[in-house]
């Protein structure tokens, strides 16, 4: 620390930041460490081993986990694709559609899935599906996830679009591109980092969702979170810690990917300044 007076600096804020990171990462790191514990007991340390990782893939519950993983990933990919497409269209309509009556109402509707508490969404969706006689299963989960993911995809996409100068599209139109070509060759390539960020966020939100899925999954169908929850209800077991660690690493890989795509997008966007 240099000794000149720094107007921005407040003593203790650094320590609190470190504390914040310890709180955020501590439990995760401890579970990671214990996932390599050779012992059957989760309390005693029995040396390092990968046995619980092997157990996930070959053990008694492996079939259940594999089915859950398949459900989770296939639902997440489809929900993310559909919600990203809907959110991209909505973002262009909202941000490049001029001023119109009902703009605020439209925004409120798009944000509704974020504003309504998750448990309320879960209850409402369950009641809705059971009233119209929609069979609970992977399809009901997919529909609910798509709805829930739209605002999460919308946020980064609309943020990106707002940062794009409208003169690019005007230039494209001026240079004889029609509306579709303007979108295809100019707007979409420039807003692409936002679309990818929106897709990744929607994907992870779907993958992580427990509350809504738990309500509407129907009998016999599990996703990874509901499977983990079911196991944890009977007590934390080492194989769950290994499974959690894998999911955790996957999430970190995704956020890293999203981070680098965001950085590239920024670099691209700064060219005109």
């Amino acid at each position, binding site marked *: 620390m240099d000794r000149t007076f720094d107007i921005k600096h407040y003593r203790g804020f650094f320590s609190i930041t470190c504390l914040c990171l310890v709180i955020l990462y501590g439990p995760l790191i401890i*579970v990671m460490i214990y996932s390599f514990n050779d012992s059957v007991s989760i*309390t005693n340390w029995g040396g390092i081993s990968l046995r619980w990782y092997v157990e996930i893939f070959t053990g008694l519950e492996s079939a259940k986990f594999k089915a859950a993983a398949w459900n989770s990933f296939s639902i997440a990919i489809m929900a993310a694709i559909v919600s990203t497409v809907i959110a991209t269209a909505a973002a262009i309509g909202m941000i490049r559609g001029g001023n119109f009556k009902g703009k605020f109402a439209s925004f409120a509707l798009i944000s509704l899935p974020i*504003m309504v508490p998750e448990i309320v969404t879960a209850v409402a969706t369950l009641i809705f599906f059971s009233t119209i006689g929609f069979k609970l299963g992977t399809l009901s989960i997919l529909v609910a996830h798509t709805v829930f993911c739209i605002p999460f995809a919308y946020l980064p996409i609309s943020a990106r679009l707002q940062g794009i100068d409208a003169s690019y599209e005007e230039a494209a139109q001026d240079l004889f591109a029609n509306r579709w070509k303007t979108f295809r060759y100019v707007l979409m390539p420039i807003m692409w980092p936002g679309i990818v960020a929106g897709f990744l966020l929607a994907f992870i939100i779907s993958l992580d969702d427990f509350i809504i899925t738990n309500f509407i999954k129907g009998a016999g169908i599990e996703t990874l979170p509901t499977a983990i929850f079911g196991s944890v209800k009977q007590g934390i077991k080492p194989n769950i810690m290994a499974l959690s660690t894998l999911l955790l690493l996957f999430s*970190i890989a995704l956020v890293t990917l999203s981070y680098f795509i965001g950085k590239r997008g920024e670099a691209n966007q700064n060219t005109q300044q």
Partner: protein
Amino acid sequence: MAAGTGSGSTVSAIFSPVRFWLLLPSWVVIGFFLLVPVLLMLTYSFLTKEFRGGVIWEFSLASYDQFLFDRGLFGDEAPVIKWTYINIFIRSILQAFGATIFCLLIGFPTAYFIATRPIQSRTIWLFLITVPYWVNLLIRTVSMKFLIRDSGPLNELLLYIGLIDAPLHVINTNFAVQLGLFYSYLPFMVLPIYASVERYNFTFSEVASDLYASKVTILWEVILPVVKPGIIAGSILVFVPSLGAFLAPDLLGGAKTFMIGSLIEDQFKGNAGNWPFGAAASMILLSLVLVVLMFYVRAQNKDQT
């Protein structure tokens, strides 16, 4: 600056002729699969319950009555205010409020510290805060349960150091739930505050300092008022999901720490099996959240004028 000098109202409108078709999918999907279900839920809360889930389509105020009053075992006594459910709501509000305060106490200094780093290291700090936000909430809550349980690593560490003689009993207490909520939603507090501190113009601080304000005074009288929108946004983002939280009270708490989320879940998935009552409890929760959001919108509008 594309629109430039011409006029005040140059909202880009290149896609306005097809606006309707661009917005239609989101309206239909969210309207049909969320707005309609919420209205249906409102209807359900006024219906008669059928045992083992489901409803009978007969109008009834029984759910709201059950929420507020006790009419004895057979329902024939004079109504007395029943505190069971009201208490659950009050406990939920207090827990959510507590989580918001704790998140603010840790989150503001963190956000401020990160926003005042040089640009290179700032992105790394920010990345570190963002990662937990992307990690599965269930996994994070389970990790917390693993850490703080009676024979968990935290107690072992404290025993080993000699700070305590017997394991601290944290799990299944209100404090554990509080800790869980705080831990779940801490990144939600840091990110919006960071965004507003980053936009804060530090010349204000320098001006205040030049005019004889101490650093503490600058923090209270200049920085906090200017970054208030970020603080309010962060508080809403922590308070609202905490209010309806299910995982933290369910996994870290016990029977005595029941919150709204668990109460609702119990009506549909658990033993209670009372759909209209669950719908009514959900409606009350939703109303609470809408009140908070309206307060937020009003606070924002006031800041803008």
